[in-house]
């Protein structure tokens, strides 16, 4: 049976929201196309109880099987130089048709070098669409199409997974994961970390990235003048506020939300990277309270 691999990113020891979404998307594709969903956990040295806890959460998100590699080299940030050889080993072993990275920058770091290493097609900031075959309406013959915008939003780039005789690596836009798609138990297969004869990078210092939340948000609220304190603090965890006067920071450039709320009076202009939105993202214009509905 074909396999799909979803990479799981941990931050502060917890599975990120985009990672749960990536597993849920893998589950959706697997149910339609007939495939096994593998979730790949890469962790520093952890006890079995902690690994089981993470595996349980990933399993509930929709994974059939959990692959886990635990090593000192995997304790730091997800970098190609530390994580890439393991990913290549997994791809070589499973030969998946699809390898998915969650939103949050990990796809930009790990996706392109993995695609080059294994000769895969690659799509960044993609959305997945299941398209029914005209002549065969049964589920197993649905086509899996990955799409991303061109930066100017004047066209889209599409990859039909079935058209390629090679795997597809994709980083996903940041969507909302369903509450639960699977059982909170799945078999965990521990993977050895590939030995390397080369010295890797050594971590000298690390601090929290205050702008990192932007990378993980599934909704952006765009405002010309900001929000007052109450409204700002009421924003849910998956939403981030962007004020029009802000420049496009590297953190904002890494965002890939599925919904964009434009607070009136406002219109997206060059200060907002519309190209970051997922292909099926919704643009929602929110009328000011004094505006009369049309």
């Amino acid at each position, binding site marked *: 049976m074909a396999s799909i691999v979803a990479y799981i990113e941990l*931050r502060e020891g917890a599975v990120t929201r985009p990672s749960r979404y990536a597993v849920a998307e893998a589950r959706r594709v697997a149910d339609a196309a007939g495939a096994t969903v593998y979730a790949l956990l890469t962790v520093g040295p952890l006890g079995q109880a902690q690994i089981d806890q993470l595996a349980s959460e990933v399993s509930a998100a929709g994974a059939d099987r959990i692959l886990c590699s635990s090593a000192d080299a995997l304790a*730091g*940030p*997800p*970098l*190609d*130089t530390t994580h890439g050889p393991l990913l290549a080993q997994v791809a070589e072993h499973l030969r998946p048709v699809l390898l998915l990275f969650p939103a*949050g*920058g*990990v796809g*930009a*770091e790990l996706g*392109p*070098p993995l*695609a*080059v290493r294994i*000769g895969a*097609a*690659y*799509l*960044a900031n993609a959305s997945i669409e299941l398209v029914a075959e005209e002549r065969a309406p049964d589920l197993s013959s649905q086509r899996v199409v990955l799409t991303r915008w*061109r*930066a100017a939003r*004047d*066209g*889209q*780039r*599409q*990859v*039909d997974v079935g058209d390629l005789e*090679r795997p597809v690596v994709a980083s996903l836009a940041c969507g*909302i994961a369903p509450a639960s798609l699977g059982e909170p138990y799945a078999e965990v297969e521990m993977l050895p970390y590939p030995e390397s004869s080369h010295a890797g*990078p*050594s971590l*000298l210092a690390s*601090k*929290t*990235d205050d702008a*990192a939340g932007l990378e993980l*948000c*599934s*909704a952006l609220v765009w405002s010309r003048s900001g929000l007052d304190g109450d409204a700002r603090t009421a*924003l*849910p*965890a*998956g939403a981030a506020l962007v004020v029009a006067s802000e420049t*496009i920071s*590297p953190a904002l*450039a*890494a965002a890939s939300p599925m*919904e964009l*709320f434009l607070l009136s009076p406002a219109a997206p202009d060059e200060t907002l990277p519309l190209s970051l939105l997922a*292909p099926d993202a*919704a*643009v*929602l*214009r*929110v*009328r000011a309270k004094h505006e009369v*509905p049309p």
Partner: protein
Amino acid sequence: MIVLVCLESPAPSRASRAALALACTLATDAQVVAVSAGGSVASHSLDLARTCAPVSRVLQIEDPALDQADFLTTGMVLAEAARHLEAGLVIAGERSDHEGQGLVPAALAHHLHARLISRVQSVRLAATPDAIEVTLRAGGKICTLACPVPLVLTTPPGPNIAAELPVGASRAVDSLPLAQLGLDTSRLVPRPNLLGTLVPAPGKRPREMTWEEAAAALLHHR
């Protein structure tokens, strides 16, 4: 140490400008060389590099085949240039402004057998000659790493920093033929299309909603 900064042709992306700016921060302790593969000698990328004071040399890898090259070929050619110049550090923009996905730097690092580190914010030469200190965004952290060379770094798109680059006297652009890199043009064969097909954009209009509807919709993003 030679620091090679790669600029795409014909015009530098915001990420490439950031790469050039990053390379310039090393110019007091290293020799910064700018290179562009393909395009015209009068390209905006080469214009930017030749008037950038900290850049000591500007190279153009010239061959008509490069104008149609895929990302794997472009990466291979740039890797051969880095090898030819004995560059310890290569810096490139993470992606082009139009459809870039970070594949050229990945292909470059692959062919150079060098480590690739993305989303770099700053860099400095370490106390030992065979290492670089790199500060980057990754995993929700700002991390500083000591990395052995050879190394390929990529910079994310930043604000337009052209005005911040120190301007100097315009220097000549040296041509770097493929043959000098040991590459035969006949090797630059088209590869399978790994980027998918281009389709027209669907026409979507913004949906109108009230504050109350927006508040309810936002709650789904818990």
